[in-house]
């Protein structure tokens, strides 16, 4: 039996930038603004950081760049890149490294100028799919949506409900990018991008930075903010190219979430708030099913009638998600920070009353990497 990481590490600092109005700043400068805020939030000196976890789509050797930029000499670095899920994956690595004493203060950080900076193509993968010119990353998600519609009768209207629910949460979040009213009809009549996904089925392209500081739980109360504990984590993949995905209606989130819930010793019914990587509307439906919040095939029905919107039975993507709050290329960090802020009770109008348990699911590549994390307040340890 391997040692469980349940409750072994805690988040003691988080930092977010603004999500708009950052023209002229490069991705490192945006990241630095988030790191500055996370350090202040944790009440530490930057030189206490000895673990660096960072990845992006625009440069190689990211942890080295981060260490140099902040003048750090870390004892542990991790630059694994699993796509947008990577920061949830990094959180698992950070918890393990902290547990083993390979580092004592872990910084997970990201910054992007996707909206206002020069457009940067991610490095090419050079695959047998290239010649067909899929419009990545949209085409793979469109293929998954089409298959889900075929197998389960999921409708365009149900996909639109996901976007409308996200917008309703965004309207409660002053930091969210898109806060104008949005209707199901607006989403359904938006310009088609890759059938069956239209413009408003697709996430934003934002600037933004995010940073998180973790320590071992035995020290967690030495910091000014209420600690948020990692109770469970699971990371899985079963493909990279969409043509290699065994079943387009079942993502590796099924196994990742099962592992995370098992470690945490809780079930989906215990969860107060859910943060899912909604790069596209189909994602929210797939992950709700795969994580066990509803049965496979019932996701479209589950998200209808405001069930995941403010006032619904399950609060999902309470910051407004990648669809309406922020999506700067890689979104995984923002899931966890929203979960932490909900569990601290810092979320103002969008606060889920008495939230003690939060589930996040990071998505990377083309539904390829799925990393589920369960966080809890001290009461849940």
């Amino acid at each position, binding site marked *: 039996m391997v040692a469980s990481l349940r409750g072994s590490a805690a988040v003691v600092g988080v930092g977010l930038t603004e999500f708009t109005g950052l023209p002229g700043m490069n991705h490192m400068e945006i990241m630095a603004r988030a790191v500055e805020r996370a350090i202040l939030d944790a009440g530490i000196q930057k030189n206490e950081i000895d673990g660096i976890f960072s990845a992006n789509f625009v440069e190689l050797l990211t942890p080295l760049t981060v260490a140099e930029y902040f003048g750090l000499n870390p004892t542990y670095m991790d630059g694994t890149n699993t796509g947008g899920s990577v920061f949830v994956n990094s959180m698992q690595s950070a918890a393990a490294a902290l547990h083993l004493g390979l580092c004592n203060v872990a910084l997970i950080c990201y910054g992007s100028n996707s909206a206002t900076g020069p457009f940067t193509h991610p490095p090419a993968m050079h695959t*047998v799919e290239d010649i067909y010119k899929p*419009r990545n990353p949209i085409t793979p998600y469109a293929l*998954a949506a*089409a298959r889900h519609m*075929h197998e389960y009768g999921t409708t365009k209207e149900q996909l639109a409900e996901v976007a409308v629910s996200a917008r309703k949460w965004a309207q409660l979040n002053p930091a969210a990018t898109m806060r104008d009213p949005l209707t199901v009809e607006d989403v359904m009549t938006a310009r088609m991008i*890759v*059938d069956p996904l239209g413009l408003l089925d697709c996430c934003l392209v934002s600037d933004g930075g995010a940073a998180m500081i973790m320590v071992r739980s035995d020290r967690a109360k030495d910091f000014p903010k209420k600690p948020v504990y990692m109770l469970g984590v699971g990371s899985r993949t079963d493909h990279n190219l*969409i*043509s*290699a995905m065994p079943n387009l209606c079942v993502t590796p989130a099924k196994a990742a979430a099962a592992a995370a819930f098992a470690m945490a010793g809780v079930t989906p019914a215990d969860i107060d708030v859910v943060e899912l990587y909604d790069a596209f509307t189909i994602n929210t439906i797939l992950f709700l099913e795969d994580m066990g919040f509803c049965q496979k095939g019932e996701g479209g029905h589950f998200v209808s009638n405001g069930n995941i919107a403010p006032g619904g039975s399950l609060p999902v993507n309470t910051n407004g998600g990648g669809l309406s709050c922020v999506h700067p290329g890689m979104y995984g960090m923002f899931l966890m920070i929203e979960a932490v802020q909900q569990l601290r009770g810092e979320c103002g109008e969008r606060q889920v009353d008495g939230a003690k348990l939060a589930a996040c699911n990071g998505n990377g590549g083309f539904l390829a990497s799925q990393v589920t994390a369960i966080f809890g307040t001290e009461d849940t340890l």
Partner: protein
Amino acid sequence: MDKNKSDTGQPGPLQVFEDHVSQGEFRIQQCKDCGSHVFYPRYLCNHCGSSELKWVEVSGRGIVYSTSVVRRKPERGGDYNIALIDLEEGPRMMSRVMDVDPDQVTIGMAVSAHIGLIDDKPAVVFYNKEQGDKEW
């Protein structure tokens, strides 16, 4: 064309596949040890790990597993289909269904493989109706 060559000077599996397509042939790999068909072309069988992979002809028959339409302005070439095709031999591949309007391709549709051209480059594409003589 050196990019896929091994240190023995022999072309790697991806290069062999592309060479077949350039010659108008659609071949995939089959594992001599476990019998599984393998696509995309690999050095090791992704089912059992064996390196004993041989090139075999395929029937060319497939079924559309999922389908989408990339919307593109007419002046840039117009809309086109992207589909996932389940080959009769087992593997799934990305391709385009070429002889049906892109938004009229349906999941479950029977299709057959052909060597066509995409942007003047030979590629395995699919037709809803049998077209012409297969060359493999």
